[in-house]
């Protein structure tokens, strides 16, 4: 029922209106209950192989190194906390949180990031009312799959091209953040466009994210690079603990 001739300025104006709301459009994850059942199931199906492969990886590596599971659990806890930390920059609004997918992918690799993300998202859904159980699959796909692979891929590629690790980490954080939100917008638009145009809905939701996510992505890039710098300057040997992360 979306008016096909809707002028682009209506879309823009709606987006501007959304920014006036007290909190950023969809927080980080798709809230419980937004996706209709078929879409919820579809995204579960998409997420499943990534998490399953990550678990296989985990099983294999913890057979070789029994300390591996505690390590993933602890790093997972750290990433969970990081993704809950309110970003302290006033211009980005009050409720913005980093996604943490980029730094996670650099540290423990994209497969394990999917596992950790699935757990973190379950905990957030159950105890913090962030995201949800029906939308878990979709949220895993946007953060633990799209965010993680983009972050990891960008980091690896940037290193291959000879960029210094600081720049590579910045780009990884930036693009993984954007990828996460782009995927979220896509998931939302696909489910919500109703009988109207998918592209209009998609661009509208994407636009609604832009004012907060564009700067947030940049901040996340700095966060990713800064955190890595901290670890490198204080405990460089830790980065070698998980050789299949992107840093080796």
């Amino acid at each position, binding site marked *: 029922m979306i008016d096909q001739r809707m002028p682009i300025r209506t879309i823009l104006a709606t987006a501007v209106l959304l920014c006036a709301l007290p909190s950023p459009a969809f927080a980080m994850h798709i809230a419980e209950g937004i996706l209709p059942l078929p879409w919820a199931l579809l995204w579960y199906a998409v997420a499943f192989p990534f998490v399953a492969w990550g678990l296989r990886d985990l099983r294999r590596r913890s057979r070789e190194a029994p300390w591996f599971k505690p390590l993933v659990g602890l790093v997972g806890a750290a990433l969970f906390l990081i993704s809950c930390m309110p970003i302290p920059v006033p211009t980005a609004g009050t409720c913005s949180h980093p996604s943490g997918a980029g730094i996670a992918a650099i540290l423990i690799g994209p497969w394990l990031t999917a596992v950790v993300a699935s757990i973190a998202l379950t905990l957030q859904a159950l105890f913090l009312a962030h995201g949800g159980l029906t939308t878990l699959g979709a949220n895993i796909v946007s953060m633990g799959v799209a965010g993680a692979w983009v972050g990891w891929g960008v980091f690896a590629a940037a290193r291959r091209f000879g960029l210094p690790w600081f720049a590579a980490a910045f780009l990884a954080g930036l693009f993984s953040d954007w990828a996460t939100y782009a995927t979220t917008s896509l998931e939302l638009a696909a489910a919500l466009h109703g009988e109207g145009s998918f592209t209009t809905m998609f661009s509208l939701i994407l636009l609604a994210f832009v004012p907060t996510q564009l700067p947030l992505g940049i901040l996340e890039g700095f966060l990713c690079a800064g955190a890595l710098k*901290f670890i490198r*300057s*204080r405990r460089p040997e830790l980065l070698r603990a998980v050789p299949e992360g992107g840093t080796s």
Partner: protein
Amino acid sequence: MRAVDVREVSFTYDDGTEALAGIHFRVEEGEFVAVLGSNGSGKTTLIQLLVGLLKTNAGRIEIGGREIGSLEAEELYQRVGLVFQNPNDQLFAATVEEDCAFGPRNLNLPEAEVQKRVTESLAAVAALPLRGRAIHHLSFGEQKRVSLAGVLAMRPAVLILDEPTAGLDPAGEAQMMQLLKKLNREEKMTVILATHSVDMLPLFANRIYVLDRGRVLQEGPSEEIFRHQEMIVRAKLRLPYVSRLMYEMKRHDGVPIDGLPLTIGEARAQLLELIPKEMILPGIEESGS
């Protein structure tokens, strides 16, 4: 002037734990005050209220005569400085120097002034030789001192410490207490410390607040506090060992002891009064200490 004035303050955590229940707590400028209480008595909660990390549910807190909520962060943190119990949780730069410079840099001081402050604060805690060292190579005692230096570099008027001697060995403990005493006596810094170890307090603190389950059980100079053995036990604390000895001798053996000596020096003086002169062996090295 009054450095800290806490009136009728209560605090309840979100999950319903009532950590403080109507507390009065007053510290004059230049005092050395100890908050004494068992685990979970509310010391850390009180401290976090004093530095604005928590907000009171009820009551009023004044720092240097101004309501805490009316102070800008910048102003507040140059009035009160907090040294955390675990130095590991406080040292977040890579090297000692960088960590000490963190606060002054955030005050936008010129670099020369930053360096001056770093030097001074490291000197104050006898840690100048550590200046270039990496934080995670420091020993526990060194970390404790460096974390104190980082706070001193902010030049707070009131220095608050959460369990400053926890985890330190006897030599480190004595060094830390001497250091605080020096800051208090020579630099005229107001010192507030939370602790549950009692033995050193009588030597250092002007005044003690005994906390128990969020309430002030008693307040006063140490002689006053430790006279109330039952109150002390009720607060899950104990007398300093020396006082305990004197208390038992007085109470159970009927030895006539005046008041209750709290320090080794006092106990010695009193005991010597009781022991007949002719029993004392001459020559072994008279007086000294």
